[in-house]
């Protein structure tokens, strides 16, 4: 499902807030729902661990991102939007 930019997915603000801490300043403007966390935002597996911790703090509940990582077909599908949707579904 593709959403338009005008209708940001649920929990997108939280995901953006966490990513802003991790993503280098130069790349921050790329944090859009469609951005790939690997290709566009340059996250690696250790950064994903830090992202997990930040999200746990923001959402106040345990978060397990390997389930999200394993749920996509291709690394390019690891987008900000798909992460926000995964977190909303796991609520």
């Amino acid at each position: 499902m593709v959403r338009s930019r005008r209708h940001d997915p649920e929990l997108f603000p939280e995901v953006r807030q966490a990513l802003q801490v991790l993503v280098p300043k130069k790349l921050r403007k790329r944090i859009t729902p469609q951005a790939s966390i690997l290709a566009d935002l340059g996250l690696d597996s250790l950064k994903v661990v830090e992202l997990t911790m930040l999200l746990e703090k923001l959402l106040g509940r345990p978060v397990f991102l390997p389930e999200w990582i394993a749920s996509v077909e291709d690394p390019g599908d690891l987008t900000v939007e798909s992460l926000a949707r995964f977190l909303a579904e796991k609520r």
Partner: protein
Amino acid sequence: MIAGCTSALRGEILFLTLDTRGSSVNVFTPAVALELERELRGGLAAGARAVVLQSAKPGSFVNGVGLLLAASSHTQDAAMERARALRRCYASLADAPVPTIAAIEGNCYGCGLELALTCDYRIARDSYDTQFYMPELRDYAFIPLFGGTQRLPRLLGLRAGMEILLGERLDARGAARIGLIDRLAPESGVGGELRSFLAGLRGRGWQKRAPKTAPVSRPPRLEELPGPERRLARQCVRLARLPFQRGYRLENGLREELESFWRSLGRKESERAMSFFFVRQAAKAHAIGSASYERPRRLALSVAGHTPPLRKLLGILSSRHLPGIDLRRKGSIAFAAARVPGAFTCVLGAGPRTGGDCAVFLPFPDEPAPVIELVPAAEGRPWRRGAPLFQVLEQAGLAPVVTRARERFVSQRLIRAFRDAVGSAPARRGLHEFGYRLPQALADRLRPGGSAHGIAQRVSAALATECVRALDEGELTHPSQADVLAHALFGFPVVHGGLLRYVASRRSASARAAARVLGRTQP
């Protein structure tokens, strides 16, 4: 923008330097591979007579290929294309018409070791943080894909090659002993040894090493491996035998390896095993505030007292060649015997400190990667003050876990829970078949027999229940710490993911409790 490989042609020698952007360790991504290939091609065209592959990261030659890519690749075409791009880089290094040398300072894991194996020669620094390890089978439950199954047995013979593929960890001295590296450099660095080696090559007219296959030997006994590890190990032996067959061609072996890799990656076991990497890193981040690898600049460790566990710890630390870390001088970190039997305290910083900074417990010091439980005296979390100690212990090959234990160490609670769950029932075979890699001290006391479905379920449920209690009481502060303790203490198998997730997927009271602490509803 440079992803992680630069080059310099000095004299007649091309130096390729790995330095992954934005990471504390080198990660061999497709982008880095493309750069390496390009720099190599350019250097050879400019007349290089030899190639040196080195790292600019302290403590890391190459640590991995980027687990995110592997864990999220489910469509074969895209993943194969990515793998092919990386393999092209390995092939171009292996096919370079001039001698190639890997100058290894820092950890050389998985695809990094496979990269070093494409070079004609390997020189490694003799230090605690230069370790050789293939995590693919043991930690991620997939077949390596960059030539390891072919080049390791070819270089070392079937037995030694398979032992490394199955997860044997070697330091630089061990690597030199079995012929994995050609020269051992002192802990101050590889520079001097590399210069003399290059001078020798120049003297011999920059000759490439003649290809040679080691004599075949018998593979290790696979029936001794825990149950879930045997199937992949058999596939791996089949691949490792190929180089010894008549008419063998490396490219055919590499093609078979890639096909086996793909079949192994698509399985649930591998998915769960890869997820455990994140669990381990989350536990570290919760313990000391960061999951990344940082090498403390200088650290003094002083081990006081003469209790047997302290002597063991001193033995472990002394045998791992920690450069820049003074083990004897009184100073930055001191371990001293405490009143709790088998425990000792640790003082960080100069000068005596009443009570110490943390209590330390080393339950199974004779294991290859012994658990060391650290209980900080201060309340604040994460325990940033203890970060250098944690990093050094981890890099020295121990498995540090930070808990907030009060009266007894959490490890002691879990060992008790394990013993109570086993009781006098036959258990050794059942736990082994399920995949537990128990410490010798525990395994020796078990009665033979038992089934993976009976005893292993009972033990797993009992351990999970005790972990949930420790979480509820605040002695463990995050579910990932429970999973890491179960894995480090009892060898809970990574193919089932973490202990709590495994137990939560079943139907019982302990499953409901595990699901609750993981913040999920039961299926």
